[in-house]
């Protein structure tokens, strides 16, 4: 695919990335180029096609929320972006680097640019909080030990867990674990963060603390692509909402339009089903 294709009229966010918090290393891309570019992506599990031709560009600093029924393919789409799922057709590039499943080296290059937060946290249970954050920078980026630790402490402070550096994951609440997972992903200086239903496994009273961290990342100019069931949050934080239905991007646009003036019957039905 050609990286020079016109970014198909998507409206970059109005946020000014230059005001970014110093904790976040500024993205490496040129201004104006999409960070994630997905073209005609198709993906099947066996004979079951779950993504039926997806085109999506995500601009630098943009916050995109993907909504839709379960089974609409939104999690699969997210997992395709860092190669956890292998797709059959179409192309995908992150920060100008194409996703090549067959090249382990290219995959690792790409994954250094993409941070992922999982629904089930997936902290490493045998490592302390600090070591969870420092592991990948040490092994992959060969970051110096003192620098690595300073940065890990800084990021843990960023998510409000400075005092938990030496705690073990099983000593933390779900909300705290998820915030550690966010710090762990940030430590790799990703150009884009993928959030896969990151509050779905949390008790209701713990959802807020995680969402506040995500919101502050958005304010700091981090590019975010998130699958979420928290419609209020999506409406408040996202620059653009993508509504997926049966493997396609069915409707997309700014939150006010999607939530206020849904056009298609599928989206109307989806939104009204949320209130039942």
């Amino acid at each position, binding site marked *: 695919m050609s990286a020079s294709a016109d970014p198909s009229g998507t409206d970059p966010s109005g946020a000014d990335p230059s005001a970014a918090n110093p904790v976040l290393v500024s993205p490496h891309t040129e201004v104006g180029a999409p960070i994630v570019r997905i073209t005609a992506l198709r993906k099947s599990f066996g004979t079951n096609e779950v993504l039926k031709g997806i085109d999506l560009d995500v601009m630098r600093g943009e916050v995109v929320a993907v909504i839709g029924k379960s089974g609409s393919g939104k999690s699969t789409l997210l997992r395709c972006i860092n190669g*956890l799922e292998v797709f059959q057709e179409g192309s995908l590039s992150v920060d100008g680097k194409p996703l090549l499943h067959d090249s382990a080296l290219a995959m690792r290059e790409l994954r250094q640019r993409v941070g992922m937060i999982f629904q089930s946290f997936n902290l490493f249970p045998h490592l302390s909080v600090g070591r969870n954050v420092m*592991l990948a920078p040490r092994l992959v980026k060969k970051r110096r030990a003192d620098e690595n630790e300073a940065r890990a402490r800084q990021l843990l402070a960023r998510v409000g867990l400075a005092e938990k550096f030496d705690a073990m994951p099983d000593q933390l609440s779900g909300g705290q674990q998820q915030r550690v*997972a966010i710090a762990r992903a940030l430590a790799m200086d990703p150009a884009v963060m993928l959030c896969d239903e990151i509050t779905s496994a949390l008790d209701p009273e713990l959802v807020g603390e995680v969402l506040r961290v995500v919101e502050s990342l958005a304010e700091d100019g981090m590019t975010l692509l998130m699958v979420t069931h928290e419609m209020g949050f999506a409406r408040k934080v996202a620059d653009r909402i993508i509504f997926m239905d049966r493997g396609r991007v069915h409707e997309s646009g700014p939150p006010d339009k999607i939530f206020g003036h849904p056009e298609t019957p599928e989206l109307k039905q989806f939104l009204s089903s949320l209130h039942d």
Partner: protein
Amino acid sequence: MRIALDFWPVLVQWPLLLEGAAWTLGLTAIATLLGSGIGIACAWARAKGPRPLRWAAGVYVELIRNTPFIVQLFFIFFGLPAAGIKLTPLTASILAMTINLGAYATEIIRAGIVATPRGQIEAGESLALSRVQIFFHVVLPPALKRVWPALVSQIIIVMLGSAVCGQISMEELSHAANLIQSRNFRAFEAYILATLVYLGLAVLVRRLLNWVGPRFVFGGRGGA
């Protein structure tokens, strides 16, 4: 009928028992280190390796687990010289114990690896770790933690099994008991004492490994 037990003639030979116990511990320590290494390598081969390797590791595990240790030892010590490989009692003992423990450790560690949640590997992948890094830093330490009690039990079984090495004149604990009884004809007393020393060693090794495991093998704040 009276049974006269006299432990004194055996007790005065305590340096022999001590030396034997030291050899038993030494053999066990070496077999544990080497056997665990084999176990980890073969567990990887069985769980994630290419097909021929998977198959070869399976044959090794089943052959060892379904034959007696004493036959393995005799095959190595008495059989291999016929093929031109001559071994001292010490090397034969270490080899037999290592191969034996390696096979059991393979199955034990494999069970721990297979139980790794999918999300752990995905988290490692999305942090751009390589396959080797994921295996050693993400998969293996929790796997060892999961199966540590079983592994410790197996190490103790191998230590107790090493009593057979006395039969190829390896000078370990059972051999010391045999030596003592040949000097003073107090066979029952000699074997009673040696057995008690084995019992003590079993308790000691279990305690030691339960202490070592969380600190040095799969520890959280320690090595990663």
